[in-house]
């Protein structure tokens, strides 16, 4: 199932997200990207594993931490960086910023900065797909914090009731801003939230792009059989602070040991090792991919900086 072509695409997406986020983190101090950025370093494998199952007609809705979802879905890189710089060439013309990336040409239909807010939107998109008898699926990405919002449960009920083509994808990084999961929930079992509605849930290693891909593929297969929605929980870790380019191990919320442990489980490194060990990609190929991506990112920042400023629509 995982062949050279698959590996090349997944690796390209993982590295694109990682390097784009790193570039944002390093440029951010210049105070030219004047919007809050919620970076997804450490969480890339969930966006990529899911998107490897999707085409342009499949629909994605996302949350405040939307860079990875946007890029994995194939969103335009130049338009994303321009958006962060508040330029008229931005993907939403500078009106949205980092938390509201959208590229309708590839089915990325937007992101809400209201926690849980875009979950019902994906369900509504699923309703459209079902009413129009389209063979596509709608995905909603959200964090563990969003699983505490009522609208998540309301949305799952409706999606299950109508057997809608929806995949609920929870990126469980065990933290909502600075509140650990254990101070917000009595149990660590988000994937079971769909059970009462008959929605099957799986919990996977969110840093393993292949595991996420396989879980999503199963969910899509279920949809194809007319069996309705699934819930996937990917356990992961954000390497940076909730918002901004710093690391928050000094705040006491998350320890350095924990951070080191997750650094070992870096989803990009993990997949690169797999590719090299299994001869899916050669070292020369991975280097070439990295170089190509770096050039694209440099170009995107150059363009964004010189692009015209935003205008009212």
């Amino acid at each position: 199932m995982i062949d050279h072509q698959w590996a090349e695409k997944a690796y390209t997406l993982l590295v694109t997200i990682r390097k784009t986020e790193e570039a944002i983190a390093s440029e951010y101090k210049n105070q030219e990207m004047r919007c809050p950025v919620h970076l997804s370093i450490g969480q890339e494998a969930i966006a990529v594993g899911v998107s490897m199952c999707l085409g342009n007609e499949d629909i994605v809705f996302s949350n405040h931490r939307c860079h990875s979802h946007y890029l994995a879905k194939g969103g335009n890189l130049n338009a994303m960086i321009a958006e962060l710089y508040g330029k008229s060439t931005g993907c939403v013309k500078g009106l949205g910023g980092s938390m509201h990336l959208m590229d309708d040409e590839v089915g990325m239909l937007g992101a809400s900065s209201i926690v849980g807010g875009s979950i019902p939107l994906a369900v509504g998109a699923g309703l459209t797909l079902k009413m129009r008898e389209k063979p596509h699926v709608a995905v909603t990405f959200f964090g563990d914090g969003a699983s505490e919002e009522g609208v998540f449960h309301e949305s799952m009920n409706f999606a299950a009731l109508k057997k809608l083509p929806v995949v609920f994808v929870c990126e469980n990084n065990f933290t909502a801003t600075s509140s650990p999961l254990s101070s917000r929930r009595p149990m660590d079992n988000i994937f079971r939230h769909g059970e009462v509605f008959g929605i099957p849930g799986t919990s996977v290693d969110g840093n393993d792009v292949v595991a996420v891909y396989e879980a999503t593929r199963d969910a899509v297969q279920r949809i194809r059989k007319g069996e309705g929605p699934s819930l996937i929980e990917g356990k992961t870790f954000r390497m940076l602070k909730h918002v901004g380019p710093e690391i928050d191990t000094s705040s006491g919320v998350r320890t350095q040991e924990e951070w080191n442990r997750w650094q070992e489980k870096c989803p990009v490194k993990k997949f690169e090792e797999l590719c090299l060990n299994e001869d899916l990609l050669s070292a020369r190929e991975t280097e070439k991919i990295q170089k190509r991506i770096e050039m694209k990112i440099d170009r995107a920042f150059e363009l964004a900086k010189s692009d015209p400023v935003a205008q009212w629509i």
Partner: protein
Amino acid sequence: MNKKRTLTYREAISEALVQGMEADSNVFIMGCGVDDEGGIFGTTQDAFKRFGGARVMDAPLAENAIAGIGVGAAVTGMRPVIVHARNDFLLLAMDQIVNHASKWNFMSGGKLDCPLVIRAIVGRGWGQGAQHSQSLQALFSHIPGIKVMLPATAYDAKGLLLSSLRDNQTVISIEHRLLYETKDSVPVEPYFVPFGKGTLKRKGADLTIVAFSFMVKEAMDAAHRLAEEGIEVEIIDPRCSSPLDMDLILESVQKTCRLLVADTGWSSYGISAEVCTRVYGQLFDRLKAPIRRVALPDVPTPCASNLEKEYYPGVDALVDACHILLDNGREGNTTEKLLPAEHARFQGPF
């Protein structure tokens, strides 16, 4: 084609839904009880009989998700109509209406439209109490990116609803339960009342009443009574609180120099305040008297019918306010306050 055909407000809404669904297969209805025998006070039954459960679907009690599902369906090309039997239930959907429906077009840089229609009824007539009677137009009119329509006649109910079904913005329709059985001549064929265009209900030179929703009917009755005293009132129904037809209002006040604003909601921070501000801003020097408002007092709706009767300002309050505006020496209620016939003859349970 019979132009003189009359329909009730309820029937006009029902006909608009059926015609809108016939014209556009993307239109569908969602809401609690839209497919039951009551059919939201008789407005969704015909559509259900005609188009079935796939397009007129009952919904779980999940107002916020249903609104969000409406947004998701709308931005992907459908035209959902969500129905709530009361305004009050919209409060559970505020996040999706205010943070999502109203903003998705803007936040997408204008690329995605959100053509969602949300109908919600103001309950009045049978001890509805504090949580089944609110008129929440002010809350929604405050939010850019959504339209708010307040049909006061069967004709406008059909025409505005048909317009909402082909508008590309989210529209909130605030309907009034006491208007449901009122009749008006309603053309059989589809027609479209434009948003932000009010209507002159009555011509008069002495003062202007800008009235919304059920207060239009009350204002017409008040004008009738005042005419017997030789006072000629001009009545304007803006039909929408957002966008608001200021041209029509200003034109009238320019002529009469006196304004009374009547609303079914509370007066504090209400849409009547917005009308006042805009008129003061344009015609301060023309006004011969301070603008007056007739709207709800700042308390929740009581249930007991004697208190209800005191609570809702009606024809008497309007007549009094007109007298004060004209400064003709009369003030205060001289007669015993009467309930409007629509309220007085209402039969329970609801």
